[in-house]
């Protein structure tokens, strides 16, 4: 029975190997999940599997998708770094933008640029407390989460600013059924962040920092500056989202970002970003964004009560965090 004849070397496909591949290669797992999801909704929900629906639904993923990339940049720096304040930063930046174009009568482009800088500034506040003062990111961004949203509500007295210039709505129009904000904002942001994290010295510093901050310091990484920058970039991206969301709602709302932090963090964690730092990449995070967005779209088309989307998000967050922790322990990635 025992086959002693020289065996042809075959690629070994065993269950443990498949499991390992799926757990280690988050992109592969997400592609399979995404395929399954699309197949499921295509067969159950009417009008789901059409080009106009699939392309159109990406409009709803732009905001959370960009914020998920912001979380990626922050979380990857490690030491429990997380940005809980992204939602409030979006709200406050939206209000700032709205005030600029209405009360101060600025024209569109200067207002946009100032809003981006304003977002950068808000992120810098987090960055200062976390990187320079050395406070835990969790508590700093929890405090600014409440502080920023409070300021946004006070400035507007909870009333949305709706007389923004109509030219802004152009951003929310379609090009061949593809939403413009996907083409003009989301794709360029993806490309920029990908290059930043993958091909620039600064990007590699962030990973080094997240893997081992002490080793990074001995390797002459400007630790404080790198960590500060991660939060500042996160704030800048919040400014971008503030513009996009103001265009989509045709008004600057003081509650524009409420709950976005949950979606952003969920997507980042689903995209394989390890909360312990040092692990994470742009492509799986983008796939995770697509997964969440299409799932929400599918649930809408299947007439499932919207409230379930919140439960699904919570469940996906916990599930994928457990998966990440398991994969990290089992295969000692980092």
């Amino acid at each position, binding site marked *: 029975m025992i086959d002693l004849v020289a065996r042809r070397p075959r690629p070994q496909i065993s269950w443990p190997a498949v499991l390992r591949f799926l757990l280690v290669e988050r992109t592969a797992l997400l592609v399979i999940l995404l395929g399954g999801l699309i197949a499921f909704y295509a067969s159950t929900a009417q009008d789901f599997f059409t080009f106009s629906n699939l392309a159109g639904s990406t409009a709803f993923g732009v905001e959370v998708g960009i914020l998920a990339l912001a979380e990626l940049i922050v979380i990857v720096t490690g030491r429990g770094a997380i940005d809980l304040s992204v939602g409030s930063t979006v709200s406050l930046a939206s209000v700032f933008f709205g005030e600029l174009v209405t009360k101060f009568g600025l024209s569109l482009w200067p207002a946009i640029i100032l809003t981006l800088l304003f977002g950068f500034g808000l992120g810098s506040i987090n960055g200062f407390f976390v990187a320079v003062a050395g406070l*835990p990111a969790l508590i700093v961004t929890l405090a600014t989460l409440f*502080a920023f949203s409070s300021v946004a*509500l006070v400035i507007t007295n909870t009333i949305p600013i709706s007389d923004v210039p109509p030219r802004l709505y152009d951003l929310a129009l379609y090009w061949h059924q593809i939403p413009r904000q996907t083409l003009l904002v989301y794709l360029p942001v993806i490309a920029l962040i990908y290059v930043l994290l993958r091909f620039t010295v600064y990007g590699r510093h962030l990973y080094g920092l997240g893997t081992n901050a002490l080793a990074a310091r001995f390797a002459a990484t400007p630790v404080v500056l790198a960590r500060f920058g991660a939060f500042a970039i996160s704030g800048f991206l919040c400014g971008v989202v503030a513009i996009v969301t103001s265009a989509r709602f045709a008004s600057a709302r003081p509650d524009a970002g409420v709950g976005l932090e949950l979606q952003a*963090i*969920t997507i980042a964690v689903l995209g394989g970003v390890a*909360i312990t730092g040092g692990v994470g990449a742009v492509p799986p995070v983008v796939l995770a964004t697509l997964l969440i967005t299409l799932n929400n779209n599918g649930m809408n088309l299947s007439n499932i009560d919207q409230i379930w989307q919140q*439960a699904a998000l919570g469940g996906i967050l916990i599930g994928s*965090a457990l998966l990440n922790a*398991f994969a990290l322990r089992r295969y000692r990635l980092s």
Partner: protein
Amino acid sequence: MATPNRTHALPGAFADLLPPRFGLREVLDAREASIVAVLVVMATALSIAYPQFRTLDNVNNILLAVAQVAIVGVGMTMVIITGGIDVSVGSALSVCAVVVGMRLQDGAGVLEAIVVAIAVGTAIGLVNGLLIGLGRVHSIIITFGMLNILRVVSFKLTGGKWLSGVPNTVNYFGSGTLLKLPFAWWIAMAMAAVAWYYMRRRPTGRHLYALGGNPETARLAGVGVLKRTIFVYTITGTLVGVASLVFVGGAGSVIQTAQVGIGFELDVIAAVVIGGTSILGGKGSVIGTLLGAILVGTIRNALVVVNVNSLYSNLILGCLILLTVALDLLRRRGRLA
């Protein structure tokens, strides 16, 4: 030979693990003293400027408003001392309150309400504890997920509607007074006393500090890390159940499902952090948390008395958290240097 003094038998690094002594220096150094000082200054200034602030009614208003924060804060103190955090307490409170409210509508008695509240709260806490302990995932992620799931649960339990016509069976928890103080505040103090004894004098209570100081060292030193982790989240859930009785008792006949416990976690975490518990774990006390809760309540109350836009209160609370955490870290650094 005299028995060696335990406090001095160990190198300084382990001093935090031992019950503290009560010398003058410790009292002056303790966070509790600075909170009391801030409270006294604030209360004096407000009482002089606004006579309505110093009435017994208003003091009881403050204590009543923060009783829920104080009760849950006792559990949150334990969680944060072990190096974790629980941001799901607001949603858990709404689930407990809704379940209790529905049972009361069906004619449940006081005893059943208490049992139901504690059972639901404990079950939620146990789920948190098991996921965090067994899954070994950072608590912020798990409890953040639970925050949202529980919010949906409480929404679905009532179909998104308000509960109305809730009988006043448990009102004593919310508005009753005992020896001129709110009954709810007596509950908070009793819980804090038990927790204080447990964390100061029981070996497993000391383990919580060891766990927060350095989990790996604690494990090697024989601390039941998994058991302690599950325990702190479960007990926090139980206390949320108790707090939900106070909430339902104070809410009157209508429970606005979607509003219950929104932002509650910030108040609780603020009370704990302001009370001197280090967010990094390993250091803190429930007495500080009680005082922190009173300070949070006093500030919120003062904003109403002084007639400041209530939208500002979260801004002020956020800044206060940042300030206290910054001071705490500065002090730590000063000691290390």
